[in-house]
């Protein structure tokens, strides 16, 4: 219960993570007069590599809402598990704009507590298990709702009765009203905790299958131009937008391939990704394949958990429903403690009673 309350509380500021980020770190593309660019991505990557000579580029990231920015994610190796820098560049001039401070600040603490409690994958999976418990308690709460409400009209809060009755009514009211929302947010949260195993499954089956025919080939000596890779992407999927490009050697690519993850441009398809395999040496198109259902499920679970797919009014409603959920959980804890207390007292009473009768029977026999 404590963990569930912690998830709801840390989740509240995270709803506005994007806005808080923009406010704390001014990463807007500067105003430019006239049409400039686009800048060479190869030059941008060369600049990023010169800033951290020992490191490797893992991903080139794009954001459809920020068409004038490129983000470069670097790590101490091409593998995806570690991130050493996250740079922002102007996509028109190629100018270096920002070095995102990693692992620092209030929002980072909120995110880590919410995602893994600083315990990595085991922490994430533990919170996933907590989420499953929340789903179970939501269902049991819904089952208990009917017997409680058989004598009360909907939403009745008996204020004149004891504090416990008042909070029971508030718990029932807010619990039943937020039921579907909290169930969906919990379920999609649990699915999100499985993102590493889910992507791992895709990497070891479908991605491995796609790249298997090329494994016997000589490793590419020099990587070709990323600008050429981006041109290939535009020709292959002109109706889609790049979400991120995984670099050769990364878990999301292969030693000899780039993999471009493309998103659609409609409301629903923009949440889904299609991988395109591109030869690292020649920048030629190799293959594209839809992601399997379990990755698509994960991708659709993300917006439904974050509440970031309907603008600011949706975020405000998400925050409001989250606050109501905090009241439901808090009152649930209170009622549970109260019920145990009462049980404990009556248990004490029974103990005292049996002691008295024992004493009385002894005095009779004496």
């Amino acid at each position: 219960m404590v963990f569930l309350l912690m998830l709801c509380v840390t989740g509240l500021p995270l709803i506005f993570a994007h806005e808080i980020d923009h406010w704390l770190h001014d990463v807007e593309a500067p105003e430019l007069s006239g049409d400039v660019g686009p800048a060479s991505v190869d030059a941008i990557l060369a600049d990023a590599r010169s800033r951290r000579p020992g490191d490797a580029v893992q991903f080139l990231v794009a954001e459809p809402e920020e068409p004038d920015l490129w983000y470069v994610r670097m790590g101490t190796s091409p593998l995806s598990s570690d991130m050493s820098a996250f740079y922002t560049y102007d996509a028109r001039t190629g100018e270096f704009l920002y070095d995102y401070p990693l692992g620092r600040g209030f929002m980072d603490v909120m995110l880590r507590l919410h995602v893994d409690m600083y315990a990595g994958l085991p922490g994430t999976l533990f919170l996933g298990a907590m989420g499953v418990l929340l789903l179970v308690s939501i269902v049991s709460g819904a089952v208990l709702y009917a017997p409680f409400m058989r004598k009360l009209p909907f939403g009745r809060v008996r204020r004149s009765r004891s504090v416990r009755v008042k909070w029971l009514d508030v718990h029932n009211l807010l619990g039943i009203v937020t039921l579907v929302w909290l169930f969906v947010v919990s379920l999609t949260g649990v699915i999100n905790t499985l993102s590493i195993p889910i992507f791992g499954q895709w990497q070891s089956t479908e991605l491995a299958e796609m790249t298997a025919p090329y494994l016997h080939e000589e490793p590419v000596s020099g990587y070709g131009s990323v600008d050429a890779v981006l041109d290939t992407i535009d020709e292959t999927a002109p109706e889609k937008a790049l979400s991120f490009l995984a670099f050769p050697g990364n878990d999301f690519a292969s030693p000899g391939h780039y993999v471009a993850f493309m998103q659609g441009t409609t409301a629903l398809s923009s949440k889904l990704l299609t991988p395109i395999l591109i030869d690292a040496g020649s920048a030629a198109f190799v293959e594209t394949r839809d992601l399997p259902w379990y990755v698509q499920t994960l991708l659709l679970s993300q917006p439904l958990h974050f509440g970031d797919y309907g603008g600011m009014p949706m975020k405000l409603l998400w925050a409001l429903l989250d606050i109501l959920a905090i009241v439901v959980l808090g009152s649930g804890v209170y009622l549970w403690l109260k019920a145990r207390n009462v049980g404990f007292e009556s248990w004490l009473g029974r103990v005292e009673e049996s002691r008295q009768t024992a004493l009385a029977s002894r005095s009779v026999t004496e």
Partner: protein
Amino acid sequence: MNARRHRSAVQVWRMPVILGASTAVGLAAALLADGAGDVISWLALGVPAIVAIAYALKNDD
């Protein structure tokens, strides 16, 4: 107490089902369409939020 008679399952579950359906519509609309879908989402998700607050603050006892 005037609520001596038991309420039927339909009476007990009418509001929860309406609110649950409204929430579901709200969650789905913005995912399926931009623009109008977003507006439908705001209205549909606003229903449970407003009902919760209105009843929680109502002085009926």
